[in-house]
């Protein structure tokens, strides 16, 4: 384990957040969504396109940095970067931006993610393109896709079945994550499922997608875009909103790592890549799990929310079902999780909407206000990333 002290904490902050509406059919191009989100984030930060000198997105994003820069009229970029591994990239885009800002490579970096994931290319379907990619990832996919395991839900279900078998977790334990998310989304006007909470019975009676996952264990598919403006903590203090200071930012990939199918490790019970992220977050921030007020845990599928609680140290291995059974992850609980409704309730914007919620918690503007520090995670089952954001008072 690396013991060198990171110089990143406290150097950068998220000063602006922006998003399009979240829908099932945006009716416009992904580039238009990206640019709308970036413009909204810049307006939120009180900055203009000419202030931007860096752009970061996901390798999966279809909108090139130069196309976004052209549409915005950004005259000069000194930093542009992309992060691999699907939703695992979300918090790492902010880490990239923070590192660029902390090292003086760039002053204002915008992280963006925009897609028509529901009305266009749907990630929940079997992707023949992913299976045929002429890369090492395509070779990796050859051990699962031809055998009939070819959707993210199926990949997670394989893990979830083993987790249930060893720890005695039930479908209802997974369902409590969905119930909490939908309860939070119900009071969020921007959430697709605004005003539509569910019961555990709704979850149990929803159709099978891939056993042991019901439909309501799976996040939505959404059209939309989210952008985040990252600048120095110093500069952020002079901007309109209280800065969400980046107290820690980390990436992680574990032993014998695959994309969604890390089935060849000794056990199939944890997310070692998330533990690697968590260890760095605690080391960088000096915080402990008990210090975290709110968590935004990546919820493409409910079982991995339980595992993240375990890997991040909020409870012991196999204990998440007991941890959440008492309502700990709902408003008023020990650790409210996904107060915006998560990707189960608000929208699936590849984790970027969760980072925006963390910023609202720091600002005090969430629909389900709790406060900071806030821990955010990115896609699970893949190499991933995480953040801890705090108010300007903590450094």
């Amino acid at each position: 384990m690396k013991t060198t002290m990171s110089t990143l904490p406290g150097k950068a902050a998220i000063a602006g957040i922006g998003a399009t509406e979240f829908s099932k059919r945006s009716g416009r191009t992904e580039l238009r969504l990206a640019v709308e989100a970036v413009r909204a984030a810049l307006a939120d930060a009180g900055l203009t396109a000419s202030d931007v000198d860096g752009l970061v997105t996901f390798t999966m994003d279809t909108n090139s940095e130069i196309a976004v820069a052209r549409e915005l009229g950004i005259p000069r970029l000194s930093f542009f970067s992309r992060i691999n591994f699907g939703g695992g990239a979300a918090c790492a885009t902010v880490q990239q931006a923070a590192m660029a800002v902390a090292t003086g490579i760039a002053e204002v970096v915008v992280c963006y993610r925009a897609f028509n994931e529901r009305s266009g290319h749907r990630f929940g379907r079997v992707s023949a393109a992913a299976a045929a990619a002429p890369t090492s990832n395509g070779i990796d996919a050859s051990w699962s896709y031809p055998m009939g395991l070819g959707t993210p839900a199926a990949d997670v279900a394989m893990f979830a079945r083993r987790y249930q078998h060893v720890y005695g977790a039930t479908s209802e334990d997974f369902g409590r994550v969905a119930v909490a998310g939908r309860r939070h989304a119900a009071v969020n006007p921007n959430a697709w499922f605004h005003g539509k909470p569910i019961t555990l019975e709704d979850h149990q009676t929803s159709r099978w997608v891939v056993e042991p996952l019901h439909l309501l264990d799976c996040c939505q598919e959404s059209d939309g875009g989210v952008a985040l403006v990252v600048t120095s903590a110093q500069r952020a203090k002079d901007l309109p909103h209280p800065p969400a200071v980046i107290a820690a930012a980390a990436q992680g990939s574990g032993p014998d790592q695959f994309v969604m199918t890390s089935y060849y490790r000794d056990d199939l019970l944890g997310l070692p890549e998330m533990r690697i992220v968590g260890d760095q977050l605690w080391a960088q921030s000096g915080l402990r799990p008990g210090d975290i007020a709110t968590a935004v845990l990546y919820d493409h599928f409910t079982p991995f929310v339980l595992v993240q609680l375990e890997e991040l140290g909020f409870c012991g291995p196999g204990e998440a079902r007991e941890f959440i059974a008492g309502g700990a992850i709902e408003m008023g609980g020990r650790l409210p999780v996904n107060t915006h409704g998560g990707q189960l309730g608000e929208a699936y914007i590849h984790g970027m909407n969760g980072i925006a919620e963390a910023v609202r918690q720091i600002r005090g503007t969430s629909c389900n206000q709790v406060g900071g520090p806030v821990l955010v995670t990115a896609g699970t089952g893949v190499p991933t990333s995480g953040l801890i954001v705090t108010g300007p008072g903590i450094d």
Partner: protein
Amino acid sequence: MNSIEAEAGRLKALGESEPRLARDPVNEPMINNWVEALGDRNPAYPKFAPPAMVQVWTMYGLNGVRDADDPLGAMSKVLDAAGFTSVVATNCEQTYHRYLRPGEQLAVTTRLSDVVGPKRTALGEGWFVTTVSTWYVDDEPVAEMMFRVLKFRPPEPSGSVLRPLVNQDTEFFWQGTAKRELRIQRCPDCRRLRHPPGPFCPVCGSATPEYVLASGRGSIFSYVVHHHPPIPGKRLPVVIALVELEEGVRMLGELPDVPPDEVWIGQEVVVDWSRVDSELTLPVWRARHD
């Protein structure tokens, strides 16, 4: 009443087909061939014919053509046209009134007894077609057979199976499946087995991996039952199992023949082969019952 039931009713009402004579009378050479092939040393033969041979005497043979009034043939045509194109025999019950001796000339008639469906079965939606055949020597009925088949519609897979990418690091595996060999990469130096394979040994760094043949036996480490969305080339729901092989490595594959609610973690399986085409054979798992 739908057209299948209507046609079944019509065929049932026709009753027995015209008697069809056996090509040869009951005879010692064919009895001897039969007992030799089956290894039956019962000394009652060939003075008598083995009773289970009764159907043999009236088989159509190599170039035979089914009689136009054969009710199973007629009913199959109707079901084929309705899309129930696959067939599997499910039950056979033979009753022998007496033993037959060489020299006796048999004739057989068949009638349609029942057509029941549509039923949902593990193989797909289908109809159970039951016929009753009676063998006569002159006017004397000597044996009867109830024969039931399931005519079913194989659920249509959408598209064709996604094909693996194959490169120099992985071709040994797919060359193996083509020969119905399950190959596991092995490091020649530290002997570590590894799946999925790669160009180096991640433990000792050896760059010249070889492979060993797996026994093909293992147990289910985890599994899923996939309902949605469609998977190219697969009939849903489909069980996909992550199997831990005896040798210690894990491997994914379909478990085609076990109903989803009869699968469990720890279940013993053995590899089998699903030939997609001349270029691709996939490993699949079968439940082991030994």
